[in-house]
């Protein structure tokens, strides 16, 4: 059996797990409605305004920094696999690669982008 087939089996099992549990719960759990049950939970105080509002930019900055370094990790995986056979040459090329990326990290650090304000 190939891994691809097992992957599909596992994937479908995950979906079945969630849907089956949901269906069982729907069948055996009680149901009742009243006005207050439908309100968002905010410790008993009526909620003010909508929660779908503009949010802080700080999170976005960390997300984009994450993406850059994620791409870097992805590019380094093929290198890491053959590092042993590449020898000094492989080390030097990655040294250059990482040096340039660390420049980026240092720039973000110096500009205070890594601070949480």
């Amino acid at each position, binding site marked *: 059996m190939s891994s*691809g087939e097992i992957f599909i089996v596992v994937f479908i099992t995950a979906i079945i797990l969630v849907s089956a549990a949901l269906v069982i719960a729907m069948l055996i759990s009680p149901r009742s409605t009243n006005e207050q049950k439908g309100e968002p939970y905010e410790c008993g105080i009526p909620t003010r305004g909508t929660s779908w509002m*503009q949010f802080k*930019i700080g999170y976005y*900055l960390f*997300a984009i920094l994450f*993406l*850059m370094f994620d791409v870097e990790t*992805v590019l380094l995986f093929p290198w890491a696999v053959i590092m042993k056979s590449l020898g000094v040459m492989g080390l030097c090329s990655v040294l250059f690669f990482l040096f340039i*990326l660390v420049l980026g990290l240092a720039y973000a650090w110096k500009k205070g982008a890594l601070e949480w304000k």
Partner: protein
Amino acid sequence: MEFLTAYLTANNIIFFILAAIILVFGFLSVTTTKILRAATYLFFVLFAIAGLYLLLTYEFIAAVQLSVYAGGIVVLLVFAILLVKNLGEETEKVSCQKKLVSAIAAISGVVISLVTLFGFGFQNNESADELTANVNMETIGHTLMGVEKYQYLLPFEAASVFLLACIIGSVVVATNLKKEDKK
């Protein structure tokens, strides 16, 4: 009938399911009026594309697709969407003129890619199968890290400069926005 049974292999069935998912959710993600739902549908599209790569046994590319696109870009998009004002409201309906223009653009895009696809002489021979079957991590690594013909060390290093530019750009934009936020 014979044609059908020859065509209905497991691979083909999975391909058509994935293609249907990609098309349906792709269409939904452009037509929905709620912006975060569009991101959700896009997530399904990206996930299904990873499935396509897996079907071709390009496991590395499939994992890259999952990690960078489905796990990275979508998160970035969600954070970006949360910077929008009046997020809960539905976006306004698009005018007829805009619809027409974008339909023409989309159709011409489809036509161009179809012409290119059918114009390309695909060869169905065994050497091509061998080429794709043996892509393991060592091959990818040696191709990426070598300096000879058809090896790509220079683009690899150039990618780091590109990433540096992205980091600096995002930091500049974000720190400027932060200052505006404070004012």
